[in-house]
């Protein structure tokens, strides 16, 4: 339980024996602040029994000093003046706990980030500030209360949101380890964007040929349940037991009866542009998006089906020998409880502006790279034969324009999309293989060929195919009204000359943007978002798939733009993180949560409005409405405590009294233990 343990109150009101340990952090702190002086000043504060400066407090030697002080000198409050708690709070808590003291009797004072690093050029004033900071920490340490962490049980099942390559890999890994996994995909088939691509860089493997076996594998795995054509509509709860509501959209085809023979689609009289082919090809109103779809179950597109429009037709019903068509199907809401969640909602390809310089909406022969993928794909609308949209003729002179929708501050897309350089190089190779007499120019700003085998491919397209690289961002595109050819005006920056060259077709290497579908999921889970709009990981280097919400992991392009190998690697990492929790079966929740004093609470509900994690509810208790905190959901941000007009909410370890004691110490208002205790 996270309540302060009242039984130890008598103990904590005993005379505090405070130990102060000032860390040099090599020269990080010691190079600016005189740690000896700080330790000496601290030793004069009433109640401080040990005050030492240590070269590296986090080292084995430093920790031994702290343990010794607790065991030999009877220290019962520890103040470590060193780096940020973000870095070493856990280390010192463990150290103090090892010596038999409640870990929450340890307080860290940040002398590095908040003193020595910012005051590098004023060593004397920095030392004075360090002494003040330590004094504040000592006063606060007197008011610390012992807390004990809480354990929650972790349900042994996982939810994977998004059925692209990242989601498939994550579901496969968790399923393989023997945990029930639900893979939710909003489209009729799993596969995501990778299913649309032609070949993959740098090796030239056909994308669907390497993806389809994985899709089949995940469908065959007895632990994985694929919920295609479904959307997550609500998530409540916390690590270990998330309550999830999933809406299964009606397919109007009974999944158990459909065998995917495709006779219905042959007979269906309605033809509509195929979204999967970026609108180039056509599909019927009853369809599978692509032949390798998993699950191979047909779906009726209600908007275009003649039966739904006019009440007539029903040709599909007549030809289906399995009687799988059911026009009366309705959407279903499925309730699940899962222990962990993996968000793999992927990306949307950037759509060029309607009034943009590159005239994507105006000129037919300006296409995006995703459209090109479909046009050169053997399973695409043209059977892999590249033609240009205006007249269906094979283009011979093709230009790629890089960084469209990436590295553009005006569009709020400051980031590099990471894949565009390589997919343009890869696509130019594929085009040159098909028609060796083609001429290809790539207008680039910087070529980023950073991965394994990438630079070699960049070299190969120049050496083997003579693909031309023009360093410059095109300024203007004009169309010949007769031939519909496009002239690009650009500065060739390496020559310093302005060039104008004519092409049959122009391909915009569009970047990756956060998927529209990520937004609702992000709101349901209160996941933090980074500057670029993608989901924010816990730590950019050391916790790359974890999020601020425990039990929720992210992978693939939902986290940032990345290529297929990186997505797969990250999916495996996320799966590993989720299974670790499920294998343990229990999870320790930090006790630093908000607590409500029911006697003071008026039930106004302000706290429920401000809580970013939906951790506070208003409940009726004996005819009175009171705020109640769900501890496992609370992140200890303190927003509610600050908002409460009644001071009825306290943020454990950051109570008003504790903070007031620090302020008083900073202002020199209290002289030692007596006053601060009285103030509290």
């Amino acid at each position, binding site marked *: 339980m996270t309540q302060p343990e009242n039984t130890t109150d008598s103990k904590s009101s005993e005379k505090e024996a405070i130990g102060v340990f000032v860390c040099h952090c090599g020269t990080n702190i010691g190079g600016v602040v005189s740690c000896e002086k700080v330790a000496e000043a601290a030793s004069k504060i009433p109640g401080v029994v040990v005050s030492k400066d240590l070269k590296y407090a986090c080292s084995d030697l430093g920790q031994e000093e702290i343990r010794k002080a607790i065991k030999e000198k009877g220290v019962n409050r520890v103040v470590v003046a060193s780096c940020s708690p973000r870095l070493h709070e856990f280390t010192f808590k463990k150290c103090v706990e090892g010596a038999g003291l409640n870990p929450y009797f340890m307080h860290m004072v940040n002398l590095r980030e908040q003193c020595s690093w910012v005051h590098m050029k004023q060593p004397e004033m920095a030392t004075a500030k360090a002494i003040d900071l330590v004094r504040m920490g000592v006063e606060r340490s007197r008011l610390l209360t012992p807390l004990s962490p809480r354990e929650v049980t972790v349900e042994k099942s996982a939810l994977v949101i998004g059925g692209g390559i990242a989601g498939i890999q994550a579901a496969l890994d968790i399923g393989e380890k023997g945990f029930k996994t639900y893979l939710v995909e909003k489209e009729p088939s799993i596969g995501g964007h990778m299913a649309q691509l032609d070949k993959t860089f740098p090796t030239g493997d056909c994308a669907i040929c390497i993806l389809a076996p994985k899709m089949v594998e995940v469908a065959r795995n007895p632990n994985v349940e694929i919920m295609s054509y479904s959307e997550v509509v609500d998530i409540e709860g916390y690590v270990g037991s998330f309550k999830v509501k999933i809406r299964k959209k009606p397919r109007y085809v009974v999944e158990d009866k459909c065998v995917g023979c495709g006779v219905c689609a042959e007979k269906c009289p309605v033809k509509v542009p195929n979204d999967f082919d970026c609108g180039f090809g056509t599909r019927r109103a009853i369809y599978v998006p692509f032949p390798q779809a998993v699950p191979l179950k047909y779906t009726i597109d209600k908007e275009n089906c003649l039966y739904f429009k006019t009440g007539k037709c029903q040709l599909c019903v007549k030809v289906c020998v399995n009687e799988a068509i059911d026009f009366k199907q309705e959407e279903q809401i499925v309730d699940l409880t899962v222990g962990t969640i993996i968000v793999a909602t992927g990306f949307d390809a950037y759509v060029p502006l309607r009034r943009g*310089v590159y005239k994507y909406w105006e000129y037919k022969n300006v296409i995006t790279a995703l459209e090109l993928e479909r046009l050169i794909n053997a399973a695409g609308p043209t059977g892999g034969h590249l033609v240009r949209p205006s007249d269906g003729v094979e283009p011979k002179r093709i230009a790629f324009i890089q*960084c469209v929708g990436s*590295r*553009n*501050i*005006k569009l709020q897309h400051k980031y590099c999309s990471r894949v565009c350089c390589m997919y343009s190089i890869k696509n130019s190779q594929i085009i040159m293989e098909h028609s060796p007499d083609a001429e290809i120019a790539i207008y680039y*700003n*910087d070529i980023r060929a950073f991965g394994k085998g990438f630079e070699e491919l960049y070299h190969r397209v120049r050496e083997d195919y003579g693909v031309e690289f023009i*360093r*410059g*961002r*095109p*300024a*203007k595109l004009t169309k010949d009204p007769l031939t519909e050819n496009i002239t690009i*005006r*650009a*500065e*060739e*920056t390496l020559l*310093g000359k*302005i060039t104008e060259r004519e092409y049959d077709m122009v391909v915009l290497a569009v970047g990756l943007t956060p998927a529209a579908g990520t937004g609702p999921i992000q709101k349901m889970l209160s996941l933090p978002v980074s500057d670029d709009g993608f989901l924010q990981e816990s730590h950019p280097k050391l916790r790359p798939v974890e999020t601020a919400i425990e039990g929720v992991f992210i992978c693939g392009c939902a986290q940032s733009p990345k290529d297929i190998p990186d997505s797969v690697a990250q999916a495996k990492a996320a799966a590993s993180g989720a299974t670790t929790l499920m294998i343990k079966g229990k999870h320790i929740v930090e006790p630093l949560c908000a607590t409500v004093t029911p006697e003071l609470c008026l039930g106004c509900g302000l706290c429920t409005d401000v809580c970013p994690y939906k951790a506070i509810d208003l409940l009726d208790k004996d005819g009175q409405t009171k705020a109640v905190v769900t501890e496992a959901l609370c992140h200890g941000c303190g927003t509610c405590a600050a908002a409460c007009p009644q001071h009825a909410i306290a943020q454990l370890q950051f109570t008003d009294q504790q903070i007031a004691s620090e302020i008083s110490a900073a202002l020199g208002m209290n002289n030692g233990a007596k006053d601060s205790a009285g103030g509290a």
Partner: protein
Amino acid sequence: MGEVEKVFISGLSEKLTEDKIITEKDLDSEFATEIIRYGGKDVMTCLQCGNCTGVCPISLKIEYKTRTTIKYCQFGMKQHTLNTRWVCATCYRCYEHCPADLNPAEVMIALRHIAIREGIIPPFVKAAAANLMQFGLTVKPDEAMIKERVKMGLPDLPQTKPGWSQVRKEVVAIIEATKYDRLLGITSKEGVE
């Protein structure tokens, strides 16, 4: 680059030129800082994509094009940049198209400030500034035009708005307070009524 000699190899000739290696002493390491001080705050941020040169309406007429000028500024090659910046019309097309949201036109304006302070003042700049102080107009109608205006019953100088002469006095006050008149070597005395 100066031509040094002609080499003849079995009837072919090729001009050899002598180019100089640029060393530290040719560069002004403080140049970019100076430009930033005069308002060209984006000079060091430029990634040299060349979009600005492509959209610049005057770029085909000038040797040091927009992007090139920025590069020279980044490098600290002051002597290459100070003479040519007056043709920039500050139409801000470069600013409009820059993917990094930088403003090259501000750099051009900063270069003019620096040129003036270095004493590199083209005659037309001096004339325009003198006209502004004397008549409140940078482009003053010439003799023939004034004759034409009088014939048509117009005042000899166009008065752009009511209170115009008061505004002119205020502009003169600003120019004098900032000592720009002394920098340019001009005076308002002749024009004051």
